[in-house]
């Protein structure tokens, strides 16, 4: 690299592609390659050569061997900056036809560069506050629209997209079975392990069966299933509806007079309301099986005894409250996911944002609703 940006002609080796910028009495001479590849050097050389001159300037470009759009843009930009700084004009001389054409092509009157105003801190707080209000309004609107849609679909079931329902139940329910089974088996297993550690010293081995049965059916079965369904179907619904929203598919539906709540939201809600209790029952069974597995390995309890104990301790209320929870979770997941999906704006990035926000929101609501139900069931001794 040369230290001095201004290079004299005798340094020039004629066969390289290096750009050269020579200041003479009659103006500037540019030679070599004015290409994107040599752009870095060209930009620096021009910057140095044009830094301190004044008055009208002629730039001789006859020596430019090769030019492309990038090189031309750099030449033009430096020349324009010089013109602005010195209130003078730059003229090009000696341009070969292709150099002239490229300079011309890249020398357009530019619109002034628009700037995005930076948001002040206070303004940001104001906007966010305002947005929270907007959000609340939007959720209310969603609920209202959905209620209207539900009424419309009861009076005219033709409005609902029943054909999607089967596919949705399959995707949200049947396809989730393996993961629900595996996870709940493990949850039952570790619950039993922890219980066994605590109870074994007191000879309370058999009570592990009670604990696993109650914990799985009342809490873990519905909860773990809901978490899995939130991750699979909740994220899926939000992304699917979000993509439809940003690609104007929702608008297209509405333009055909089709209610998108009936067409998209209700089938998804119904699918989860059908699938989740079924998944929860399976989850309960596998959780108890997990407990049984632990008992087999760790405890002085035979399999028949364990099963018998489980049967005697489980009541309809245990399973029933769990299933009530699972239906509530189905509502939470389907409605939150669809609401977030339909509120999507801003392209692919927006879809990602609403999917994330749907899943996070759903997980929070699930835990909250679960606690609420557990407390209610305790209070009313169900």
């Amino acid at each position, binding site marked *: 690299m040369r230290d001095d940006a201004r290079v004299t002609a005798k340094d020039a080796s004629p066969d390289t592609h290096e750009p050269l910028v020579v200041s003479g009495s009659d103006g500037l001479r540019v030679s070599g390659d004015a290409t994107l590849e040599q752009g870095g050097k060209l930009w620096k050389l021009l910057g140095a050569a044009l830094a301190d001159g004044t008055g009208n300037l002629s730039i001789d470009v006859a020596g430019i061997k090769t030019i492309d759009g990038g090189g031309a843009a750099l030449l033009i930009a430096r020349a324009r900056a010089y013109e602005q700084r010195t209130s003078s004009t730059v003229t090009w001389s000696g341009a*070969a036809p292709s150099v002239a054409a490229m300079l011309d092509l890249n020398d357009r009157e530019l619109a002034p560069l628009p700037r995005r105003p930076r948001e002040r801190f206070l303004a940001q707080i104001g906007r966010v506050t305002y947005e929270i209000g907007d959000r609340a309004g939007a959720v209310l609107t969603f609920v209202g629209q959905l209620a209207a849609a539900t009424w419309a679909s009861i009076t005219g079931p033709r409005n609902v997209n029943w054909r999607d329902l089967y596919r949705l139940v399959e995707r949200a329910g049947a396809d989730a079975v393996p993961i629900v089974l595996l996870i709940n088996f493990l949850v039952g297993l570790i619950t039993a392990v922890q219980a066994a550690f605590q109870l074994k010293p007191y000879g309370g081995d058999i009570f592990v069966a009670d604990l696993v049965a109650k914990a799985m059916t009342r809490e873990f079965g519905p909860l773990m299933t809901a978490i899995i369904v939130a991750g699979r179907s909740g994220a899926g619904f939000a992304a699917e509806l979000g993509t439809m929203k940003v690609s104007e598919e929702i608008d297209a539906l509405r333009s055909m007079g089709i209610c998108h709540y009936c067409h998209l939201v209700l089938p998804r809600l119904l699918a989860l309301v059908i699938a989740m209790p079924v998944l929860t029952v399976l989850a309960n069974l596998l959780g108890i099986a997990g407990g049984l597995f632990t008992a087999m390995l760790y405890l002085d309890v035979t399999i028949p005894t364990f099963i018998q104990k489980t049967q005697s301790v489980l009541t309809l209320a245990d399973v029933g409250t769990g299933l009530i929870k699972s239906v509530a979770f189905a509502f939470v997941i389907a409605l939150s996911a669809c609401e977030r999906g339909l509120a999507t704006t801003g392209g692919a990035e927006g879809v990602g944002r609403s999917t994330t926000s749907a899943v996070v929101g759903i997980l929070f609501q699930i835990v909250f609703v679960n606690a609420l139900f557990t407390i209610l069931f305790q209070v009313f001794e169900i």
Partner: protein
Amino acid sequence: MTPITEDIAPLDRHTDDVVIRVHDLSIGWGDFTLLEGMSYDVHRGDVFVILGGSGCGKSTMLRHLVGLEQPQSGTIHVEGVGTPSMVIGPPPFGILFQSGALFGSMTVAQNVALPLRTWTDLEPDAIAAIVRAKLALVGLDGAENNLPSEISGGMKKRAGIARALAFEPKILFLDEPSAGLDPITAVELDEQILTLSKHLGMTIVIVTHELASIFKIATNCIMLDKTARGIIARGPPQALRESAKQPFVQSFFRREALEDHT
């Protein structure tokens, strides 16, 4: 130092240098073959137009030419690249996708600047100068700081063209560049394409349906057909209009002929 003006006289647009050689190409998925037995050459400086009915595989053909997809059989050879495939490195082609394919999380200017930022060591202000020139070229200066979701379909298309041009590609692939453009911008785009091919010797492969534009800019065409599963006509557009015998080709160009005489 002697000025070497002779060397940079405008290239004769159609040269004998083969830049892309396609030999016995078949395109399809699994057992299904969409197009087969296609051979053609694209020469340096050509504006090579791929024609055909909707859904006949024009975009798919482009995706094969740039190496986004691999053929069922046959070969594609690109000068200086070999068999095209997607590799990490400075891109050998400029590509405009049919949908524009702008990155939604970046502003228009950041979209155009991306290849320059990644593959050159230019300073930010130099990159900004190039980006502004490219955007001015496609009539988008002023929209630099907009996100893709804030501009219209035609503007996205033009931003896509600016991005394809940013890295000064030797070969430019454009998938329906003028779809969604107003006639005035479309004509300007044609002129830009002509300038790029004339003065930079850029080779340009275009999918387009704009007959007026085809006659103005194309040096060579091929027409694909779904039922014939291959190329049904080839040659400069004027020659195709005069002498093509296939009904589809005739009716394709007749519309132009009719419009021409009104």
